[in-house]
């Protein structure tokens, strides 16, 4: 149950948004109870909670009465029973959270609601789910909306971020590929005398090149394990040292084992691919080129 209204306090009148929730259900989406830093949630009629910013601006505290000018022009007094901080300034400044009956009263709508909000697990499928829902409801007077359509610029920002992070990953992979390849190629040159004698002693070209493929593979295995271990180490440090005042990490950590396995696989695959060039050099090496006695 939403609708605009005005809040009248001593110095000024500000525009606010009345949000009448089914408090227990809305809590699942907005975590109202968790973000309440003073008082309690509105339970009875004419009880409201306001955001930190609005509370500071208007000077309203718990137990005060807020004077609301309804869209119809009437005045209603509501009791502030709690203060919340949803960590978004625009919400903290404008939302006046109350229960559905109170909101219906203020906005003069009997027994009706203005919207149903829902949260989906797969947040990036919101538009598809919305489309499904709109099809299922098939009601011309119901408008189905979703966060992706409402936040096009945010979405393109997120998109740009993920594209640039993918680019970084690709270039890091190329750099690693070149690095391993050149290290092994130098090692072929350094070991050319030993390779030459091994070839004179009858090692097959295929085996001579396999030496470097195995070396690449081993580098890949060691690299993958070290990388994953280092990643976890940094993650643990990050959760330990980069924390909010209340002790929770600044960025919540989410461990995706599938992605870790994929990264490990990429490390292995890139090291093996990188070893193919030196393996070829090793295979082509001619023993007489190496064993020259003047």
């Amino acid at each position, binding site marked *: 149950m939403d609708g605009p209204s005005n809040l009248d306090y001593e110095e000024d009148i500000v525009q606010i948004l009345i949000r009448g929730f089914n408090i227990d259900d809305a809590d699942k989406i907005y975590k109202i109870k968790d973000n309440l830093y003073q008082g309690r949630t509105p339970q009875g009629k004419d009880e409201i909670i306001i955001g930190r910013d609005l509370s500071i601006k208007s000077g309203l505290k718990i137990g005060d009465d807020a004077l609301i000018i309804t869209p119809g022009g009437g005045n209603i007094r509501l009791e502030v029973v709690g203060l919340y901080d949803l960590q978004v300034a625009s919400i903290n400044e404008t939302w006046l959270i109350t229960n559905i009956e109170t909101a219906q009263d203020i906005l003069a709508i009997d027994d009706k609601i203005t919207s149903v909000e829902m949260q989906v697990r797969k947040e990036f499928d919101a538009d598809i789910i919305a489309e499904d829902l709109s099809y299922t409801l098939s009601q011309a007077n119901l408008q189905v909306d979703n966060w992706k359509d409402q936040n096009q610029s945010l979405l393109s920002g997120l998109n740009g971020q993920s594209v640039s992070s993918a680019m970084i990953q690709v270039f890091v992979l190329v750099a690693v590929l070149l690095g391993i390849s050149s290290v092994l190629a130098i090692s072929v040159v350094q070991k050319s005398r030993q390779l030459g004698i*091994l*070839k004179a002693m009858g090692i*097959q070209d295929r085996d001579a090149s396999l030496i470097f493929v195995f070396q690449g593979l081993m580098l890949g295995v060691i690299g993958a394990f070290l990388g994953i271990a280092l990643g976890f180490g940094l993650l643990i440090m990050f959760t330990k040292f980069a924390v909010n005042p209340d002790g929770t990490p600044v960025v919540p950590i989410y461990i995706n084992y599938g992605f870790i396995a994929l990264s490990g696989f990429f490390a292995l695959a890139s090291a093996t691919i990188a070893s193919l060039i030196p393996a070829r050099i090793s295979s082509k090496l001619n023993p*007489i080129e190496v064993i020259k*006695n003047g």
Partner: protein
Amino acid sequence: MANIIELKDIDKVYGEKIKTQVLFGINLEFEEKGFNSIIGESGSGKSTLLNIIGTLDKPTDGKVFIDGSRTDTLNKSELAVLRNKTMGFIFQFHYLLPEFTAKENVLMPYRIQNYNITEEIDNWADELLDLVGLTKVKNNLATDMSGGQQQRTAIARALINKPKIILADEPTGNLDSDTSETVYSILRDINEKYKTTFVIITHDKRIAEKTDRIIEIKDGKINMDVRR
């Protein structure tokens, strides 16, 4: 006695644009169990000749027979097997693998064809190391030995697969004269004990004079061939 190595009308030309002919119609046979030396000035073509015998290089023209079968027509993979089974190489530089011990280096040519080291081959490696006088240092890394010890390890390595032919290119070129004497007497012992055919390139006339046959190469041709 049967010929173990036969070279027929061997020509060798290097280079694509500017051609340099280093060997001219070489005809040469080596008998089984022989102890032969090839001498000649540097650039005379003696190393090229040895590389052709050892199948490391191919002649531009002519035929090469090793132990009765023609080798200049074989592919690289077949040649690798032939080299591994019938030939041992000793070079001026030992080319031991520095990551391995003397004994592991000696076993290397066997390892190339066989994954497992049998007790028999293990004992044979010990016997060879004993023969070249390295029993005490056989578990040393290749880098932890003197130059003479390293070269003797290379000799033992050349013998591990019981090859019929040992090809040596200036095997003592890097050693002092006393050590050279020791190395030559070892080669001689092996020749007598295991009846291995030796072809040794040397520029040291004193050493060459101790062999059964001296072949001198000059400007890509056989200048002198003396048997004793």
